[in-house]
Structure formats: structure tokens, C-alpha cells
């Protein structure tokens, strides 16, 4: 008796997706078009110059935010990618990561701000985030595939959904963590809420928000590989190919490229979040700042682990 009974949850969701596809077809086609164009534009920017030009720019960026060691590491790492013949794949994946995380950040930071300002919004958003974050990443691919068809778009959409949560959480955490008295001072001098957000809360929460952005990017990168399953292209498709052919060599080279890009993006964003602090705590040495900002480092570790696991 009992074994016969079944909650038809899966069917419900499936029916819901069907209804969505039928009624909102034009909307999804529009989203698809926008995402494809965005992706192709970024990919064009990354792939049309010669690889060494991109490497120089990446190294210059690394030097500017952190120093010559990081710049040197960047050059070595990116040349390894070129050496294993994964440059084009890597740039395709990077384009996907950049588009997906940019959109994820554009959605999650405002959501985090809303959650920080209202307890009710926070209580509503939190369980949704829990759901999004713990649902196995593969599962997003199925509805995304139905709504946006095979190609790079379901990968981007699944990545956005999967990677958004830390952006919201860290933004809320950062803004709520701003000294209450300092915010009160803003009010006491007659500032509008918008001015307080812009001039006090956001700047002071920025290190935490940057840590969240770092995580968003890391999660996006780990999702890139999975996107390969639905024709996302780039490194993901090589990993999937290696898996189906049991090609250890190809799998390793593609995986290694993912790791190199992950490390580069992680150090870059982590350094950015640290840099903002040095501006107004000049009496601290740089070393103590990186120690005092523990969140980005462990976050990067978990993100790396995730990337490793999915390879």
C-alpha cells in the first residue's frame, strides 16, 4: 500500500517547465539571443588577438593588483595552457565564466542588498539560496536544456543559478556587518538611505562583497566543465570527451588548464578585495591584511577542490 503511494513532485516540476516553454517561448528565445551574443562578443575579444597579447595583459593585471611574482606565475601558467594546446578552449571557457559570473553578480549583489535591508526579504531569500546551492549542479542542466536548447546558453544559465548564492550571502553579510553606529551617523547627518548605501555601506562592505564575488567566479568555473555535457564548448567539452573515451592524457591537460585559470582568477579577485582595505588602514602591513581577511583564502581552497572534483 505505502510503497504504491508517490508524491508527484517531479511530474509537477516537469509539467511546470512544459507550461513555461509553451507560454513564454518568445521570452526564452530573447534571453537565448542576448546570452549568445554576449558570449560571442567576449569570446571574440579574447580570441581575436594573438595569445601572447592576452598573456601580456593578464600578466600586467597580475602585476598591478599583486606584484611581479604573481605576474611571473601568470605567464608561466598561461604558456603551459598554450603548450598543451588548450588556449582556444580555455578562452572559450573563460568567456563563459566571465559572462555567467558578471550576470550572477549583477543579480546577486542587489539581492544581497535587499536581503540586508529587510529581515523579511532575508528570510524569504535564504531558503531559496540553500536550495539552489545544495541541489546537485547537473540537475539545473535538464530544465535549462529544455528551455534554451543545446549549446552554450543552458550552460550559462545553469552556471548563473548555481553560482549566485555566495554573491547574495556575502553581500548581505557584508552590509549587515557594517558598524551600526557608523550607519547611524549617516542617518544622524540627514543622509538619504540611498546615499548611506552608496557612500557608507557598500564601501565598507566591499572586502566581504569581493570575497563573495571571488566565490561566484570560482563556482562558475567549476560549472564550466559540467556545461560541457550540454554542448557548452571550451574545456568542458574536452573533459567530457576524455571521459567518454577514457583518454587520461586529454583529461589531464584540459583539467590542468581549468586549474590554472581558476588559480589566476582566484588570486586576482582575492587581491582586489584586499587592496581596498589598504587604502584606509595604511598602518597595517600588507601581510597582516591578507591574514586579517581570512574569507577569500579558504573560499578559494574549497572552490579549487570543487574544480578538482568535477574534473
Amino acid at each position, binding site marked *: 500500500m505505502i510503497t504504491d503511494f508517490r508524491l508527484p513532485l517531479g511530474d509537477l516540476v516537469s509539467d511546470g517547465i512544459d507550461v513555461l516553454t509553451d507560454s513564454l517561448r518568445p521570452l526564452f528565445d530573447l534571453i537565448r539571443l542576448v546570452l549568445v551574443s554576449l558570449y560571442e562578443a567576449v569570446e571574440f575579444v579574447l580570441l581575436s588577438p594573438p595569445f601572447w597579447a592576452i598573456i601580456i595583459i593578464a600578466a600586467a593585471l597580475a602585476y598591478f593588483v599583486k606584484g611581479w611574482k604573481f605576474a611571473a606565475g601568470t605567464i608561466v601558467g598561461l604558456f603551459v595552457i598554450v603548450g598543451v594546446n588548450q588556449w582556444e578552449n580555455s578562452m572559450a571557457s573563460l568567456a563563459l565564466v566571465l559572462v555567467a559570473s558578471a550576470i550572477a553578480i549583477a543579480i546577486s549583489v542587489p539581492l544581497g542588498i535587499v536581503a540586508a535591508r529587510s529581515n523579511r526579504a532575508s528570510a524569504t531569500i535564504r531558503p531559496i539560496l540553500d536550495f539552489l546551492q545544495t541541489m546537485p549542479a547537473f540537475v539545473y542542466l535538464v530544465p535549462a536544456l529544455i528551455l534554451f536548447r543545446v549549446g552554450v546558453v543552458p550552460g550559462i544559465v545553469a552556471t548563473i543559478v548555481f553560482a549566485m548564492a555566495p554573491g547574495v550571502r556575502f553581500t548581505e553579510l557584508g552590509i549587515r556587518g557594517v558598524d551600526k553606529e*557608523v550607519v547611524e551617523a549617516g542617518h*544622524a*547627518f*540627514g543622509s538619504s538611505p540611498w546615499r548611506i548605501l552608496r557612500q557608507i555601506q557598500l564601501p565598507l562592505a566591499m572586502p566581504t562583497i569581493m570575497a563573495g564575488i571571488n566565490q561566484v567566479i570560482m563556482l562558475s568555473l567549476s560549472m564550466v566543465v559540467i556545461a560541457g555535457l550540454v554542448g557548452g564548448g571550451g574545456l568542458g567539452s574536452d573533459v567530457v570527451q576524455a571521459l567518454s573515451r577514457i583518454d587520461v592524457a586529454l583529461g589531464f591537460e584540459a583539467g590542468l588548464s581549468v586549474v590554472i585559470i581558476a588559480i589566476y582568477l582566484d588570486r586576482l579577485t582575492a587581491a582586489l578585495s584586499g587592496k581596498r582595505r589598504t587604502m584606509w*588602514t595604511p598602518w597595517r602591513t600588507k601581510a597582516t591584511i591578507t591574514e586579517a581577511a581570512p574569507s577569500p583564502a579558504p573560499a578559494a581552497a574549497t572552490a579549487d577542490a570543487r574544480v578538482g572534483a568535477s574534473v
Partner: protein
Amino acid sequence: MRAPKENVSSTSSVSVSVSVRNLYKVFGRRPKDAVTQLQSGASRSELGPHETAAVIDASFDVKKGEIFVVMGLSGSGKSTLIRTLNGLLEPTSGSVAVNGIDISNVPAAKLREVRQKNVSMVFQHFALFPHRTVLDNAAYGLEVQGVRRAERLERARKIVNIVGLDGWADKYPSELSGGMQQRVGLARALATETDILLMDEAFSALDPLIRREMQEQLLELQAELGKTIIFITHDLNEAMFLGDRIAVMRNGRIVQIGTPEDILTDPANDYVAQFVQDVDRARVLTAGAVMEPARAVVPLSAGPRSALRVMRDLQAGAAFVLGPGRTLLGVVSDRHVMRQVKSNETDLSRVINQEHASVPADAALVDLFELAVESPLPIAVIDDKRRLLGVIPRVTLLAALGNVPTNTTPINIIEPVSIIPDAELDAMLASPELTSAAASTEGTLA
């Protein structure tokens, strides 16, 4: 509807800066119900478990240009009270008027305008913007008001110099010591040129020496700029030092409002009495508050003989000599007067010593110690026309500091004892010229 009310308060706003009437602030789920309960006589502890009555039925007026101190232990509702004065907290019931504008019920935009133009605030933990320089911190209020960058920086720089931070304008708050950080907090509040300044335990986080320095500087600034200051503290000495008037708060209620001397000498109840027990009375009490009527006093016209007689009757070795209109001319000692009597001189003014200790009525007791130690005579308290108001014998000074009520403890010897033997004095006064005068004086004394 509100127009007449505003008119009423604005007519009185000439002298009143902040007017609070029957103010309640209750935190919790059902604050309005709690107020109704309180109004019908419930005590604070009888409220529901989810309601905290932070301010209960507070009413007071703060006059223009005065320093109004709110004092009470931690948790007594001081911060809550001060935060209703600029609308950071909305009253649960009652009204708050700032410069005649009722802010308990105005739209947000109007409230922001009041905060920009009328009331500014200094915070306990400074609440500076860590990502802005000292100068940009000080200019913040002006920036909010929409003052052009060049102008606001110039104005802010002036204030930064006034509070003593010249040369620090381009530093970040984290590079400054606590005292200097609070100077930035003060500069930020002063730069807006509002006439009301709210200070919530502004000096409590500073160490004692810096705190005293800041208190003195605040008094100087206040004398110079004539701000109305509402100052919160849990430190009675600070309250007494700064306050023109003090409101004592306990468990959300204001239990007494008065001048520092009122609070000290006439506490409204045991709670206030206990609170003021360990105050540094020497800094609070003034000469005028503890002085006693002068007894060893002779008019200049009385001459040496009657001066000597007064001293003998009081068993005093010296007396104050007064000119017309009770102006204090100086002191005569029994030895000098006696010499005059012996040589039949009549001009008392020739033996007057003008180098005795005299102080104005508002001198703090702390400034009297040295004088009391050096002078064998009681210290004379005089007004600005040198009229003798009273005297402070050493014993009175010590009694006042020890919180012994001077009027109930018998104080036997209040003047230096004469060193001339009684017999000699009697013999002297028994000489024929003075017999009749002596008899009449004796008659009045008996």
C-alpha cells in the same frame, strides 16, 4: 490640524531648543499596549516578556545655549531618549519638538532636513567613516547638505583646526588616537553649524586625562559658539562638571531635573542621593553653596574698642572690617587692635590687613584648599562689588567635602582662638570710656 500647535511651540521657541512632552519609547511586539498599561499605572516590570520600556513619560525643555546633561546607569534609557531627539528612534507615544518643529510625526524628507540644519550628533564610539580622511569626515554633513566641494572642504578645515587637529586633516581615522578621533567626531558635528548638538557618552570611551581635557575643550567651544548641547553620561563627575542642568534617569524614568547643586544638596530621593554619594564634590560645590554667615564682623566706623569687644565675645583672634554697603575692607587682628586701644588711637583703618583670602561665590571648592591651608582666617566669599556674602571656615570646607551636613553637625570652633589672655582683655575693656557701650552690647547678647 497641526498648524495651531506649531504656532504655540514656535512662540516659545525663542528660549527653548528642544521640548519633550510625555515621551514613551517601548521596544517589543506590542509597544502601544505597553504604553497604555504604563499610563494606567503599571510598572516597568509588569509588562509582557517581549516588551522593554526604555523611556517612560519623559517631559523636559532644553533652553537655548545650555548644556543639558542626562545621567543614569547603563540601561536606564539614555541612548534611547537622545535618539528620539533627532528621530533616529520614533517615539511610541508623546512628542518631541526641535526648534519648534514637532519631529515625532513628520515625513522622512522633513526629518532629514531637521537633521541637516538643526541637530547634529557625536557618538560614543566615534562612528567615524574609516574610509574617509579626517577632513572628509568633518565635511560629511556639508556634503549631505549639498555644499560645493571646495567650499565644504574649506569650512571643514577651519573646524578641524578649531578642535585642535591642524596637520591631521589628510590622515585616516585609524591613524589617530582615541581622543583625536573624538575630536574628528566633534568637528564633523560642529561643521554643519546646527545649533543643537547631541552627545551620547561622547567621552566615555576615552581615558580619564583625555576625557578631562575634552570636557574642558567642550566648555570652551560652548562658550565661544553658544550651542545647545544635550550630553549623555553615566559619569556623575562629568555630569556635574559640564551640566547647566542635569536630568537623572532610572529605569526609563527621569527622577530629577535640576542644577548640579540642586542634585547634590537636595536629592529628590534615595536613589539620587546614593548616586551622588561618591561624586567629586570639590569640583561641583561652589563657595556660595557652603558658606556660612560671617560673625566676626565690625564696621569701620565702630572703632578699635568695639572691634576688640566683638573679637572677645566670639573668642576670635581677628575680625573682618566692612565699609559702607558691607564692602569688605580687610581684616584686623586682636594684637593690632589692642595696641591701638592702648595708645588711644581711633582709626581702625590704619591696622587693616588687606591681604586675606577672598573668593567669588561661584569658585569651586577644589580651588579653595590652598587658600584654606595658608590662611588662619576663614575664607571670605564676596560678590563682584566686594560685598561680603559669607565666610568659609576650614572646618566647613572639610565638612562639605565629607558630605556631612554642615547645618546639623555642631561645629564649635570656627575662628582662630585669641592669643591674648582673657584677663588682659577684660581689664582693657573695663576702662571707663567704654563701660556704657560695653554694657549695652552685653545687654543685646544676653
